[in-house]
């Protein structure tokens, strides 16, 4: 039996909490995220259709943010596996905008360089490159280019080529890029200013 002492250990954290990471994520999320309010109930992970493919459940990510585990969070595949179904968001008893927090974590991971290339981030970049140049998305070009960049992924899937041809023959999609919007110059200026404001 351990020796009893008079010394009392106060409850609560032994060292001062560093909540800077948590606050940073909150500030970088559009709207009021409520991310500081997590009570670790796990409803998010239990509601998530892609939780099985995640390195950490959303609940674990929120605990890691509170613990200041920046590198681990930035390298986690969790936000990249999010399908934006918003089940967690509407079920969260603390009304945390979980899906939007996942977007913020993706933004931060790209900016910090923790994620350089992945099928997920490359897909987003390829998609947006078309939008930034035409003002419209370009589904056929996107699918083609994305599958070329990640050929290993495309080759694993059966019937990829017939499916692409089916898009043209059945759905009557044009293989040509979309028509550029008239206000492309204005849109470019808007996006340039938005990027400056983002990094300010």
């Amino acid at each position, binding site marked *: 039996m351990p020796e009893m002492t008079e010394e009392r250990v106060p409850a609560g954290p032994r060292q001062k909490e560093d909540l800077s990471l948590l606050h940073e994520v909150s500030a*970088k999320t*559009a*709207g*009021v995220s409520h991310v500081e309010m997590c009570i670790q109930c796990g409803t998010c992970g239990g509601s998530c*259709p*892609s939780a*099985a*493919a995640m390195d950490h459940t959303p609940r674990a990510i929120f605990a890691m943010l509170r613990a200041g585990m920046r590198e681990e969070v930035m390298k986690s595949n969790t936000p990249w*596996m999010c*399908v*934006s*179904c*918003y*089940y967690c968001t*509407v079920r969260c008893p603390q009304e945390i905008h979980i899906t939007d927090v996942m*977007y913020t974590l*993706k*933004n931060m991971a790209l900016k910090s360089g923790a994620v350089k290339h*992945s*099928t*997920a*981030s490359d897909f*987003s*970049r390829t*998609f*947006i490159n078309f*939008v930034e140049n035409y003002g*419209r*998305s370009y*589904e056929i070009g996107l699918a083609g280019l*994305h599958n070329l960049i990640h050929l290993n992924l495309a080759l*694993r*899937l*059966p*019937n990829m*080529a*017939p*499916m692409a*041809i*089916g*898009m043209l*023959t*059945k*759905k*009557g*999609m*044009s293989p040509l890029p*979309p028509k550029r*919007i008239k*206000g492309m110059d*204005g*849109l470019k*200026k*808007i*996006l340039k*200013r*938005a*990027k400056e*404001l*983002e990094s300010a």
Partner: protein
Amino acid sequence: MSEYIFYPGCSMESSAKAYYESVMAVCKTLDVKLNEIDDWNCCGATEYLSLERMPAYALIARNLALAEKQANGTNTVVAPCSACYLNLSKADHYMQEDKAFGKNINEALAAGGLHYTAGKLAVRHLLDVVLNDVGLDLVKAKVVKPLAGLRVVPYVGCMLPRPDYSHRYSDTEHPTEMDDLLAALGAEVINFPLSTACCGGHMTQIGPDTAFELIRRLIASADEAKADVIVTLCPMCQMNLDAFQGQMNGYFKTNYQMPILFFTQLMGIAFGKEPKELGFGSEFVSARAAMSRIGVKTPEPAAAPKAKKPEGLPMPPPLAKNGKHAKETVK
């Protein structure tokens, strides 16, 4: 006649032409006039939000600014695509909720000579307009060919009922609006528990293993309920369940043949319109057999090119640096 500002979205002019054509046909019957936003741009889907916050919202807000400028007697923007609908509502909602954020977005818009007054417009999905403005009584009055005997699964998907910033739908997980509409057309509506479960979203391009399982459970569940067709209201859901159904079948060695249609295509049929006018025949999984059950002859989709049989022995997986076979993963 009621007029609305219309934001079609990119899919409507490429992969979801059937949706566009049927929306136009149905709105004509219902005397709903859709005025397209002049020179609208892509909403960025979920992809721009994943990269950078301000540019993503500025991209969305440019459409709202153009719509506000063009608004003439109406302040309602109608989007038929769930992702577009959510993005437009999201930008409007957060610009109101977070004033400093709204100010920044307007500063970006100003670089292109535009401005949006947050809260000025009401962003709504076409389904909501049909149910709450047009009303089911008028819809019923226009039905000349009731869909009696057609067993339909109402599949709503995620981005319409969730997060539902403006509380427009009856429930975030089991909204009944689409059920009510299809019942008004005379169809036999199946009570579908997975009505708002995820279709896989962009996972078909990023993590197909995850996507295929999400697609499988929807198709398998509808098949088990003896559905003739699954009815959608979003181009992304339609594409994932229809165009990727064959790949999903290949992945799980199943052979489901579940046609996936847009709700407006069925409305058009019930209103007595020609299937060709409604984009039938552009689906991957033919709706012909299903529609023939109620005596409607739809065009057969163009024949799919046959997949080549792989020649020779399968290749071994690539070697990892340590000389061992790398475990196949998709990340």
